[in-house]
């Protein structure tokens, strides 16, 4: 006190600290508020659709704006199928890529890591545009050579685009997880005569299984909610697809495609689709967090 006065300084005010702390806490709490807000808003906006269709909304494959009958089945099936196919292709590719990046000499590993990060940084609309103008004609030609007449849009094309999009994310998480394996474990495995693949499969994979699963769910979450890339190449047909070359749609693509001209009950039905997507994405993020919590791996953001 005395010294402060002598030096002509003011005493550090006692009120500024708590105010600052509560202000910061308030901002941090915005996160939770947003989270709850998503659910509440979508639930309110989709009320009409749930009241009209009930649980039948999940099982109906109709989408008829004129008759005002709407069902979520084609969009849900399309979402699940594209995501599943993309994941089945991307998963092994991402795992062996991550293995290679971890094992490669430092300069090569850094270069490849940067390339993968760059792939993750390209906006999704660019993937969509490339898919629309480059990939669909190629798919059309490949399918034609098998004797299948198609316009190139559809389930398989969407899944391939999604594969390219989620590959860098899964790969980045897996790379971090593999790097965190204690070197002693690897050396011990090499010491008893394991080959590199045996070390990877029996040691690294067992040790980092939780982190690897976390990476899978991160990729799953990306693929599930991806809008633009799928919108451009899916064909946007409101039907349950029966073959890989059938046109399809996903929840996110349906939302982006129909929202502008929808009103009344159709808009409410679209909000209901949004709520379904929100719940799916939320559950997947829960699993991702559960598996990644232990490992402390980054989420492939950087």
């Amino acid at each position, binding site marked *: 006190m005395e010294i402060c006065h002598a030096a002509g300084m003011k005493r550090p005010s006692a009120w500024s600290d708590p105010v600052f702390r509560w202000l*910061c806490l308030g*901002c941090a*709490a915005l996160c939770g508020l947003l989270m709850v807000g998503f659910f509440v808003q979508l639930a309110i906006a989709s009320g009409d659709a749930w009241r009209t269709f009930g649980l039948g909304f999940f099982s109906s494959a109709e989408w008829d704006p004129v008759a005002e009958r709407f069902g979520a089945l084609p969009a849900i099936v399309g979402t699940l199928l594209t995501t599943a196919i993309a994941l089945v292709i991307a998963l092994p590719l991402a795992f062996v890529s991550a293995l290679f990046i971890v094992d490669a000499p430092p300069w090569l590993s850094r270069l490849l890591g940067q390339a993968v*990060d760059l792939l993750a940084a390209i906006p999704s609309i660019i993937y969509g545009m490339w898919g629309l103008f480059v990939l669909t004609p190629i798919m059309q030609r490949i399918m034609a050579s098998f004797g299948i007449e198609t316009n190139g849009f559809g389930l398989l094309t969407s899944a391939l685009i999604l594969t*390219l999009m989620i590959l860098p994310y899964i790969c980045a998480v897996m790379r971090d997880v593999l790097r965190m394996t204690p070197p002693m474990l690897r050396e011990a495995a090499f010491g008893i005569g394991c080959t590199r693949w045996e070390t990877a499969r029996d040691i690294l994979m067992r040790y980092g299984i939780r982190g690897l699963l976390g990476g899978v769910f991160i990729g799953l979450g990306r693929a*599930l909610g991806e809008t633009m890339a799928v919108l451009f190449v899916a064909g946007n047909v409101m039907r349950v697809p029966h073959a890989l070359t059938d046109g399809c749609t996903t929840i996110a693509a349906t939302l982006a495609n129909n*929202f502008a001209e929808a009103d009344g009950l159709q808009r409410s039905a679209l909000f209901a689709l949004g709520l379904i997507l929100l719940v799916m994405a939320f559950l997947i993020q829960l699993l991702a967090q559960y598996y990644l919590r232990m490992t402390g791996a980054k989420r492939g953001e950087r």
Partner: protein
Amino acid sequence: MIPPTKPKYRPLFWRKAKDRAVQVFSVISLSIAVGAMLWILGTILVRGAEVLGWDFLSNPSKPYGMPDAGIANALLGTLMITGFSVLIAVPPALAAGIWLAEFGKRMPRAAAAIRFCANVLMGMPSVIVGLFVYMILVVPMRGFSGLAGAVALAILMFPVVMRTTEDMMAMVPDTLRESGLALGMTRCRVTLSIICRAARNGLVTGVLLSVARVSGETAPLLFTALFADAWPTNFFGGPTANIPVLITEYATNSPFEAMHRAGWGAALVITLLVLTVNLSARVLFREKKH
């Protein structure tokens, strides 16, 4: 008596062959990833460069058939929307990150819950954010607006900036905090004028990375900012042109080759914008580490 289990015999030749096969497979899969990246970037570069020029960048977009069409209004709109989203998201995100890093230890449960929410928010589909902002802003304001687009992007940015802020501030050594406090500074002063300054490069990196991430986002803008063939004069009350939605319009809703070419040009511009910001963030952070 349990008969001793015989170890499964795997000939060395097969084990080595398998190892080799996996090696080859991993090289192939990396070539797919890197090759796809080069293919996509190459296509954008080649087809975008055809139309890119001063006229293209300085004239506003016009309906099909009019001469001298460009993308200047969309470019300006994108810059405005992104700029406003930075203004909206960064101050609270920094404060939230500060709370997690500096005061989170006093309320560990609340901090864990908030961290969890931030991680979940980061993985939320951006369409959902578009729907949400449509409900809370577009409906009450009776119309699409650039501001609504900026809010949507701000919501996407918020958790990313918050988590990087926390990470960066946690890297500042505790001795700095202690010496500040020992000088008689309040926690508030220590945090703002010592810790934030020490972590400055990291904070800027976090903001830049999040800007790079959201400036190419399209889905939320379809529900909020929409598009208009005009200069963004009515940012707060009317549809505002922006590059991602322009690309969507030109590529999917137009049968004309001229529109597709303009779309490629716009795609090149947005890609360059995003990658430049992304790379400069990386360079900045690398310099800090040395």
